[in-house]
């Protein structure tokens, strides 16, 4: 027990007391009456035609934040890929994962793609959206790699998809800039509530950002799996 550990424990006790003080000041039966939250709750559906208010905050009201968040994710994943390095051609790859897993992976792949796209597309009128659907798409692309390690993810293709997707996103934003007068403003019509093609360009943005997140996660998973035996 040296000085560092003792001071750390004192710090932890202090932090616990500090956070525990929240329990004394929290109001248990309050209803939201003012502020941005109330404004968005009452205005999101008439303004946007989107039923899922969280998604409309994410992509319409705070769309610029999401753009910055995508940049952070892209930089983090790219840096991780750079640190891990390229696949060595002489590295011994894993042996085959067996007949059952391969067949099941082939069967599962289209189902997972459909599920991911469905969750992406219906994000503006029910729970779901870019991050959930992107994660499922990444899992869909990772399952075949697990099943047969000899056929790796084509990084060139995934990078191409990522670039195309980001370019589409920027084109949508810039079209808004030229047609309307604001960057990232929403295009197309409002449509009727709880239809697939409604809520301006939210479904389009869902597909675009979802595929970007999916390719990013699939890329880092494949990089970790591929460069395995190279040390």
């Amino acid at each position, binding site marked *: 027990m*040296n*000085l*560092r*550990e003792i001071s*750390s424990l004192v*710090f*932890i006790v202090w*932090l*616990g007391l500090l*956070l*525990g003080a*929240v*329990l004394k000041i*929290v109001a*248990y*039966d*309050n*209803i*939201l009456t003012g502020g*941005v*939250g109330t404004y*968005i*709750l*009452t205005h*999101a*559906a008439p303004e946007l035609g989107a*039923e*899922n*208010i*969280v998604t409309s*905050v*994410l992509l319409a009201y*705070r769309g610029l*934040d*999401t753009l910055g*968040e995508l940049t*952070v*994710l892209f930089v*983090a*994943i790219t*840096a*991780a*890929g750079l*640190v*891990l390095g390229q696949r060595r051609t002489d590295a011994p790859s894993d042996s085959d994962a067996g007949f059952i897993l391969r067949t099941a992976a082939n069967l599962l792949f289209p189902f997972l793609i459909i599920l991911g796209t469905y969750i992406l597309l219906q994000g503006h009128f*029910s*729970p779901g*959206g870019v*991050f959930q659907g992107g994660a499922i798409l990444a899992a869909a692309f990772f399952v075949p790699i697990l099943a047969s390690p000899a056929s790796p993810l084509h990084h060139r293709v995934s990078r191409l998809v990522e670039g195309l997707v980001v370019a589409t996103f920027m084109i949508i934003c810039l079209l808004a800039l030229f047609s309307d007068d604001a960057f990232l403003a929403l295009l197309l019509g409002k449509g009727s*509530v*709880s239809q697939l093609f409604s809520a301006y360009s939210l479904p389009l943005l869902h597909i675009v950002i979802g595929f970007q*997140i999916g390719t*990013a*996660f699939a890329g*880092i998973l494949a990089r*970790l799996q591929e460069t395995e035996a190279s*040390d």
Partner: protein
Amino acid sequence: MTESAGIIILSYCGAIGLILLGVFAMVMYRHLIRIIFGLMLLEAGVNLFLITIGYRANAVAPILVDGQIPAAAMVDPIPQAMVLTAIVIGVGVQALALALVVKTYQAYRTLDTQELAQKLAKETGVDIIEGTPVYLPSPLAAHKQILEEKST
């Protein structure tokens, strides 16, 4: 005490417990993977804390039913959107940290921070003793030192 108040107290306690366990793991363990476990726990606790701040008593989820605003109050949607991005950013940061861990293991063959400090001290000639303030050598001086060692 109503049911909502009980839920709020429980989730605050869970969030505080997760944050404290995460900080404990980050400061008390010496193994890098354990430190990353602590980071993940801390992140989960902070997310739960934010969501609990947005929760309102007897409220429903911020999703309309059939295009109608429901009669009951809805919870605050803004912390939920922020946490949604925070979870994904957290996994990106974790992937970067784990990639650095892999590279550290490839370079030094150990993940224990004390052994790492000893190996670094042997390499750069500067002692990093646990429990005292760490004076990292400036990169230029360390580089010069390594060059001198190589030349001699």
